[in-house]
Each structure stands twice: as C-alpha cells, then as structure tokens.
C-alpha cells in the first residue's frame, strides 16, 4: 500500500459560539440560582415539562403556567458511566458516575442528573431521591449538582 503525504489540518483558530438560551431556559436557570426547579405546563395535555421550553410537540401548543416542583422524585432508570467525552475524546473517569433519569414529583418528563450518596453496586430503580444544590449558585445548570437518596 502506497503511503501518501499527510496534510496537516490543524487550524489554529478558536471557534466561539454564543448561544442564547431563550426565555424559558433563562427562567429555569434563574430558578436554579435560587435553588428551585421550575417546570412548565402544556395547556392541552397538561403535561408538566422539565426542563421547560416554549412548545409541547405532542399538542403543538405553546406551554403556559410555570410550576415550582418539589425537589424530590423517584429514580426511574440509570447507567453507570465510566467514561466522559472531553473535547471530542473518550476519557476514563477517575471513578464511575451514576447518571439517572428522575421523575420529579409533579413532573411528567424525566430529568437526567448525577446520583451520589449511593454506590454503583447498590443503586436501584425506584430509589427515592432529592436534589442537592451547590452552596453558591451562579445561574447555570451545574447549580443543581446531583441527587441523593432520601434518608
């Protein structure tokens, strides 16, 4: 097999995008900053969606009526993640992280979040969990740090 030259395709430019989060996620982030989880209701199917957005695709209706959800729920599904994707590379995590899908009380969609305070060997679906916020919140998704079992 003939070995051909390689043309270096490294481009020494930084591509910065500034994404606007929009009205609904903006309000959700404000909620997280004050340690609250906000959902929004579809006026037609009455589903409470979290994270909130402007439209319900099931009914093609504009969502209305904000609700503050109780920061407690049930673990419905989870995976134990051994890797993370950092800058386009799959890297092993220092220790595995439990990523769960949580049904918050009063919500109709599942929220994806980290689960701590239970070992990967013992975690089970059906577990009752509660939200744990960072001590100092900044209005980012990371303010809601993880969920842990309700003692």
């Amino acid at each position: 097999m003939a070995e051909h030259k390689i043309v270096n395709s490294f481009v020494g430019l930084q591509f910065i995008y500034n994404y606007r989060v929009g009205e609904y996620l903006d309000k959700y982030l404000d909620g997280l900053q004050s340690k609250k989880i906000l959902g929004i209701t579809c006026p037609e199917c009455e589903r409470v969606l979290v994270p909130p957005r402007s439209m319900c695709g099931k009914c093609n209706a504009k969502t209305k009526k904000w609700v503050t959800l109780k920061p407690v729920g049930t673990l419905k599904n989870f995976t134990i993640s051994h890797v993370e994707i950092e800058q386009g590379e799959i890297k092993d995590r220092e220790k595995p992280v439990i990523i769960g899908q949580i049904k918050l009380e009063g919500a109709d969609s599942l929220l994806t979040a980290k689960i701590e305070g239970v070992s990967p060997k013992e975690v089970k679906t059906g577990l009752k969990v509660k939200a744990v916020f960072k001590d100092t919140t900044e209005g980012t998704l990371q303010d809601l740090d993880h969920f842990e079992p309700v003692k």
Partner: protein
Amino acid sequence: MDRKVAIVGYKQTKYLEQNENPRERMVMNLVQSLLQDMKITRDDIGTFILSCSDFQDGRTISECFMIPWVGAYMKDVSKVDSDSANAVLYAMMRILSGNYETALVVSWAMGGSEFRSPRVMDFELDPIYERQAKLVNEITAAALQAQAYMAKSKLTEEQLAALAVKNLRNGARNPLALRKKADATAKDILSSRPLASPLRELHAYTPADGACAVLLASEEKARELTKNPVWIKGVGFCQDTYYLGERDLVKMDSLQKAAKTAYKMAGITDPAKKIGVSELHTTFVSQEPIFAEALGLIPKNAGPNAVSKGALEIEGKTPINPSGGPQAANPLMVSGLIRIAEACTQLRGEAGEHQVKKTPRLALAHGQIGMAAQHNVVFVLGN
C-alpha cells in the same frame, strides 16, 4: 404513485481505520467502478443525491469540493444532511415525480481517521442544555436505552455479549468489514473497556473510513440496466421528540411509525414472517433486540429468547446484520446506505460467506440519527 423505483447497482469501499486515499480519490474510485460495472457513463445519471456532513468532513459545505469526484460536474445535484438512507428516500421521490429516470446516491465519511465520532457526536446535542449539562452523549443515551430494555425484557449481560459475539463473527465473514473476530467469545466482550453500563467497547460500533454508492432507476430504465433489479417496495421515516426524558426508549415510537408506513406501502401485514433478512443501523448491539421488536420482527419482550435460540444469527430464523452491522464497520452517516446495499446483496444472493441460508424475497434496511435513535428510516426491499 404510478411509478416504481428500483435499485439497479451498488458499490461499497472496504472499510478501514484509515483509507490509503484522501476522500476525493476514495469516492472517485468507488463511483467509477460502479459506472463501469453498470456499463454506463456519468451522462446517464439524471440526478446525484449526496449524503455527507460538514462536521464529519471538518469543513463548511463539504460537498462543494466533491462535485467532480462523484462525477457530478455540470450536473444536477442535491445533498441530504442526515443518515444516508434519507438520501435514497429523496432520490426515490425525485424519480417518482417523473422528472428523472436515474439517480446516483453517494455517501462518504472518514470516521476512522480524520474526524472520529466523539468529536462529531457532541455537535448533535443541543448547545444550550445537554451540551452544558455534560451528562447525555451518544454513549450514555444508548446505555439508558439498553438499561430500560434489559429491565423490561430481562435480557442478561451474557445475552447482550452473545449479540456482540455474533456481529464480530458475522464481520469475519464479510470481506469489507473492519472489526472481525471469528473466534470471539462472550468473555472478550465482557472484559472490554467499560463505557456506560451495560455497554462496553465491543458492544459499540467501529468508526471507519469508507463510502458507498447506490444507483436507482425508474421501472423502465431499471429493466434496461439490469437483469435483477431490487425494488423499493416500501419506505417510511419518522422523527421523535428530542427530549430523552419524554421518550419511551424501549417502545421507540418513531421507529414503529416509520415501519408501519413502510409495511403499509409494501402491503405487508406480518413482517416477522415476510422479512427474510434485516440490516439495521445499530450504534450499539443493545439496539438490535429493541429495534427488532419495534419493527415487529420479533414479538414484544422476545429479545432474550431470540438471542438464546440464535434466531438473529446468519443461519437463524430472523437474521439481523449478517454483514456484522455497524459493530463490524461504521463510517458514521454512510451506515444507512451500507445497510441498503447489504440488503440488496442478500436479495440477489451475492453475499457470499455471509449470505443468509435461504435467499430472501424481502429484506429490511434501516437508518437512524440522533441520541438513542431519535430519527429513523425504514426500507422494505424485494425482488
């Protein structure tokens, strides 16, 4: 629709970690050899439908550099920016309109060497929530889907490993495949690098460099070009909501709807009986039983049983991915087109070592994109 559309020719490259040629020459060689096989020139092609991605190629409007290499200089071209099975769908609609008699679909990606998938896949996430939350990616999304299925159907980790073994073995029978292992065992799979439970590296697709071209023709033209055309009997496509937490990851509404449309068009009421072989775009093997159930190829929750009985093997009752599927080689968005080409190979009885036992009369090919297969395309092909 009073016209019928057939696939009259197809060609795949060998799938490699790094192709010896740049993508331009790889694609040119492929198209030229297909045209030679068909004994036609580029002037016989009515329209070109390309399928490539600016992210997978690492440049803006990637196809504009490829026009001469696919033979489309001064010709009629469009590009589908999605799994390449969608491009076949578009080519078919163009022929059905009566505006064209032939269409060439070409798709390529350097998924093995230049732009490996994790670099690309994160761009599929919405930038304002999932990319910021850094929890959902193609691995964790497929893992959550696999977990949900295993909880529901009681599929075991050993059975999941057996599926991966099957695909590596099938790959060993496919001369174009990249990852192949005739003597693979469940232990190999279960000791490979853990990604996100229950998924490990050997459950995952194998990123590869490669390209595939498929030539379509109207009924009249098809009979002129080949003795054994493969007819597009039915097609369906559908897209689900984006939000993982609002989807039933096991039931797969979008795949079910796509299949329903395709079966209706093909006049099939009992796919489990009628479909002789299926080529599915599965990013992880765990999707095989999930898709098979959504497609009605096996009964609900029958995945574990199908695996232990070997029903999904080449020699089994419901062969899935005799080519080894994306686990054996996956040049990203080219996958859907490869599934279609492989299904044609099976229908024509040209698959050689990985030919299913009884040459099928109907075959199913599937393409997808998105986290946990949000968008699905289903083709029913027959001769």
